[in-house]
């Protein structure tokens, strides 16, 4: 017998990673078993690396695919002596967005706004969110490790900082969600 399991608190925050949560009677062990079904994950592969976003964030995979074009830019692509964009910077950008988006969705049941990925100075990448209410810009250096960022609410609040991809606390970063 399969019984649909209703949480006492029906808020979305409990749904987290699971599409539905069911209990069923296990005929072998004579007990109730908890069956869970993970939400779908959409893969994105680049340079032998595999990233996965929660199914509801599928649009991010399209952003990554389109952004690969910046890796084809030649030297002096910006007419200012610009270096070719680093693959490490691109991998770090994708890794960050994937982890960041999945984390926010899993913990707050919110989808991040769609970012833009731009080529930038010295082989680095600019990751940007710009809406009518806020702006965030994060620059991933060509080594793919150091990230500096700027964010404001287009009024009176400004946040700036830096972190290393190898070790950072995601909760200390601005959140790219439209309120």
């Amino acid at each position, binding site marked *: 017998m399969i019984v649909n399991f209703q949480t006492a608190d029906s808020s979305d925050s409990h749904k987290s990673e699971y599409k539905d949560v069911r209990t069923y009677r296990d005929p072998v062990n004579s007990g109730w078993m908890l069956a869970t079904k993970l939400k779908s994950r959409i893969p994105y592969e680049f340079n032998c690396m595999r990233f996965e976003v929660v199914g509801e964030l599928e649009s991010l995979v399209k952003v990554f695919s389109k952004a690969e074009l910046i890796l084809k830019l030649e030297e002096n692509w*910006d007419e*200012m002596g610009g270096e070719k964009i680093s693959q490490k910077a691109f991998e770090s950008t994708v890794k960050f967005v994937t982890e960041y988006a999945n984390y926010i969705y899993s913990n707050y049941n919110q989808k991040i706004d769609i970012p833009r990925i731009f*080529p930038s100075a010295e082989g680095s990448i*600019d990751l940007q969110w710009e809406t009518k209410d806020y*702006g965030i810009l994060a620059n991933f250096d060509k080594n793919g490790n150091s990230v500096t960022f700027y964010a404001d609410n287009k009024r009176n609040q400004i946040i700036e900082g830096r972190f290393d991809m190898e070790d950072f606390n995601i909760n200390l970063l601005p959140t790219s969600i439209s309120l």
Partner: protein
Amino acid sequence: MNQSEHYIEDKDKLFYHVPKSLCREPDEYLEVSPHAFNPVGESLSTNWEKFCNAEGCLNAKTLTYPEGRTSLTHGVGHFLADDIRNNPYIKGQLEIHYIGNENNKSHVGIFGIPLSKDKKPYNAMKVQLQRMFRKWDIKPIDK
């Protein structure tokens, strides 16, 4: 009011050309990269509307473009002097100076943009410049 011939009024436009490579999504050219406002040399070079229009900014002959640029390679937008001078997030950091000569009478430089290697101040500045840039007087196109 300053009556100097080279005084740039707040309402004046400063035209600025942007290579297509710095515009996102080649088929739309809707977004200009924050990196598009990285100066070559000491200042960001613009063309003052008092001595130049958008077409003049685009078509100016240079060593790199001896026949002038075209909308196949670049777009042209502008800044307003007032925005540059009075942006509350970067107030006082940017200055506008007339640096024209007989070869380029309309040349105006925007000074005070941090070096790109100074990541944090450069991040803040390029976001503001991107927001202040008004596009397009001449939109970049494909063939």
